[in-house]
């Protein structure tokens, strides 16, 4: 197949097959979905948050978990980057630290799919040195 070079080429492919692009039904609320927030400030990016986010987005989609993966700013846990906040429907958000690909995989398999807690959770009562 020739190289895809333009949006027109993409359109041709899309017309032929259903791509990974999906649209949500209107009115579908975020509260019913797994929400994943990847901290992507300077500290996060420098520690590999981009790779973590790309892995999570792709892995969740491939494994059939309906989730919203977004980037957020600094959560204040720079020492533990990359950090990821996961909110399962009806649960309190949990923040995991040191999330590389392996950890992300573990979080998806154990916590997101099975509801089982895994190592690396940053306690909510953790306070930064500098309090506003």
């Amino acid at each position, binding site marked *: 197949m020739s190289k895809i070079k*333009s*949006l027109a080429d993409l359109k041709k492919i899309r017309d032929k097959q259903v791509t990974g*692009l999906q649209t949500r039904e209107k009115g579908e609320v975020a509260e019913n979905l797994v929400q994943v927030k990847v901290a992507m400030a300077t500290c996060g990016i420098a520690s590999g948050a*981009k790779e973590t986010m790309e892995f999570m987005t792709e892995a969740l989609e491939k494994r059939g978990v309906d989730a919203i993966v*977004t*980037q957020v*700013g600094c959560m204040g846990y720079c020492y533990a980057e990359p950090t990821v906040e996961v909110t399962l429907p009806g649960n309190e958000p949990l923040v995991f630290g040191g999330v590389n690909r392996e950890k992300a995989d573990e979080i998806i398999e154990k916590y997101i799919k099975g509801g089982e807690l895994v190592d690396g959770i940053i306690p909510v009562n953790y306070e930064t040195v500098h309090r506003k």
Partner: protein
Amino acid sequence: MKKIALHILDIAENSISAGADRVLISVMDEDSTRLQSIRIEDNGRGMSEEEASRVSDPFYTSRTTRRVGMGIPLFRQHAEMAGGGLKIHSEEGVGTTVEARFQLDHPDRQPVGDLEGSWLLLVSSNPGIEWELRCETGHGIFSISTSQIRRELDLDLIQGRVLTNELKRMIRNNLDELGLI
């Protein structure tokens, strides 16, 4: 930060925080001057002169979670290491432009890296913003924008959704052709 694409991801985050709804990212290799210019241009709320003069100070930040802000200082450091520099133009209520220049042939110039990945990540995380990517080298020009994608592919860019690998590959093919490294 080992790649320019990561700096772009980082600096563009500032545009999002500044409430911008249009962000233009451009990478330009100029053959005549042998300079590479990276620009992140937004229409966010902008900064006062005083604030703009302080953002290169690592101990200045608008954030409240901690006291340091390394994004701009690191970008500036890497530009200066590669014989270039960084300029910020900002006007309150109008927007901010950050431009870093690198000497193309400098041995310490960082590679551009996964530019398409960074851009698509910004797009999919912030579909409410009009994102444009423009690349220009001696080999030609390539540009793509979210409104163009919406119009030509007739699709909604939904927050957090993977954009097709095809879209990523399409941008990569074009960047390769421009010889952007």
